[in-house]
């Protein structure tokens, strides 16, 4: 089981003191938060990709490369990489480069992006979001797996005799998660390829994501990658933690009330009861997160959103201390003890490489037997 954080990278005024960080401060803060995530023992840091204010992370592999140089163990990922408006050729090359620099500590989450105007800025059309995802991803897979690619499609100029460089580290492409908030087509795509499926699991009620994940699991089995309960599932989540529950509620309320994604709608009380948001003590976060397993089955990756809505860096770092020291160790132990042996871990570069080598050995053995 992997635990980590995923950032949206929003620049938001702190409602408690009215200050707004500069883009420079926010970008540096995100890097600091990633380092802290490793320090407190988390497994994954993921950054969003956006191309419009108030968000800063337009260039995730640049940011992750900088973080890779200063970390040793943490897996660097995205939440999400835009497979619709980014050229799959550039994605293939950027992430292969990052893989080499980070010694394999890289995977990525693909998504479509959610803001209409961004598509035309990159020459695309949001109404083609799903066809773009399907075509671009099919090309991305080939670029990582085939040395020389001849390709023709609907959305991009054809490729003749093209080799994406560098080749993926050890010829093992980074593991791909497909992020989704609403579309069954994305669950279908993840299931078809046997990739991971990450349910955003922040904004909407559990029942909605239960449908999506249930569908993904069922299709994963249908496509022959394993049993439904062996499918690779990731979940989002959001928490604000203080040692005492009441302190968490008092301190987080102005941030919640003014947050771009939550604010000025349902009360924090309603929102915490209707969505995965937990505001409270470490024990309360543990208790609520454990219910995720009851709702969705054994899963492989849990990412928390910890640094948005104008929360100051100092507060975010304190959150990470509480998450890493008091919440995750308990969750890790509990969830591991409940997980049946046949349910796999989230793939890593090492495990994918080992699986590939094992497969090759098996093939050689079969051939020898035949001879």
């Amino acid at each position, binding site marked *: 089981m992997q635990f980590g954080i995923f950032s949206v990278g929003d620049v938001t005024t702190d409602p408690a003191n009215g200050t707004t960080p500069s883009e420079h401060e926010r970008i540096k803060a995100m890097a600091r938060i990633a380092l802290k995530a490793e320090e407190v023992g988390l497994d994954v840091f993921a950054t969003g990709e956006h191309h419009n204010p108030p968000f800063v992370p337009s260039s995730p592999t640049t940011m992750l490369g900088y973080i890779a140089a200063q970390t040793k163990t943490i897996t660097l990922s995205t939440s999400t990489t835009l497979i619709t408006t980014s050229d799959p050729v550039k994605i293939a090359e950027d992430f292969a480069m990052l893989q080499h620099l980070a010694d394999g500590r890289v995977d990525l989450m693909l998504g479509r992006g959610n803001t209409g105007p961004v598509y035309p800025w990159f020459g695309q059309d949001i109404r083609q979001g799903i066809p773009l995802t399907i075509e671009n991803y099919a090309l991305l897979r080939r670029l990582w797996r085939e040395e020389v690619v001849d390709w023709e499609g*609907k959305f991009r100029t054809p490729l003749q005799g093209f080799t994406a460089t560098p080749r993926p580290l050890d010829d093992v492409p980074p593991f791909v998660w497909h992020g989704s908030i609403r579309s*069954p*087509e994305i669950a279908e795509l993840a299931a078809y390829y046997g990739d991971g499926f990450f349910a955003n699991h922040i*904004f909407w009620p559990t029942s909605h994501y239960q449908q999506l994940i249930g569908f993904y699991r069922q299709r994963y089995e249908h496509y022959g990658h394993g049993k439904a309960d062996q499918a690779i599932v990731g979940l989002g989540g959001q928490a604000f933690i203080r040692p005492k529950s009441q302190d968490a509620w008092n301190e987080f309320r102005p941030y919640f009330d003014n947050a771009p994604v*939550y604010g000025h*709608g349902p009360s924090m009380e309603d929102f915490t009861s*209707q969505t995965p948001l937990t505001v409270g003590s470490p024990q309360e976060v543990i208790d609520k997160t454990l219910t995720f397993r009851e709702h969705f089955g054994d899963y492989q990756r849990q990412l928390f959103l910890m640094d948005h809505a104008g929360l100051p860096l100092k507060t975010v770092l304190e959150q990470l201390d509480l998450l890493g020291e008091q919440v995750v160790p308990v969750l890790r132990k509990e969830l591991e003890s409940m997980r049946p042996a046949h349910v796999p871990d989230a793939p890593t570069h090492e495990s994918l490489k080992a699986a590939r080598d094992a497969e090759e050995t098996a093939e050689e053995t079969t051939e020898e037997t035949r001879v």
Partner: protein
Amino acid sequence: MTARTIAVVTAGLSQPSSTRLLADRLADATRTALGPDTVVEVIELRDTAVDVTNNLLTGFPSPKLKEVIDTVTHADGLIAVTPVFTASYSGMFKSFFDVLDKEALDGKPVLIAATGGTERHSLVLDFALRPLFAYLRAIPVATGVYAASSDWGSASATGTLQRRVERAAGELAAAVSVAPEAKASDELTSLPFEQLLAGEGF
């Protein structure tokens, strides 16, 4: 045939409200036309006003609003009644239909009705409500019912209103009896991936 369910959505603001009064008359007349085992579920939108606004902001309904949406989605027929506000249906009425799934009313027979101070607004049924439900691919029955203040006044006027109510209710009942039974449509469906990959279905 199992008992039919009629959902009544009424957007009156005051209590008591003439909009609710009209809604109840339409519901009673529809039940009379369809038979006594007809199930009528009345939804006062004012009770879910805050939930509807929250849904517009968050993208998901509260459990209470979800129940209301399910009632409307799964009903065999719909009676929709709004007061006239600023030359059209009220904002609260429109907001409710804005948070429904765009396929929720596909093929559903709907009786449209409105209340207002004067007869001069009666065309609101045909230039505001009818296009809204046509857009949602619902099937508004031919007769809409508009009740002005004066309709509630005199005996002869009441008689006229009651005749319109009964005619519209009869049309709704007829449409509901021949419509296929409404089904729950919230199951996830998807094309096989080979078809998606081939660009079919878009």
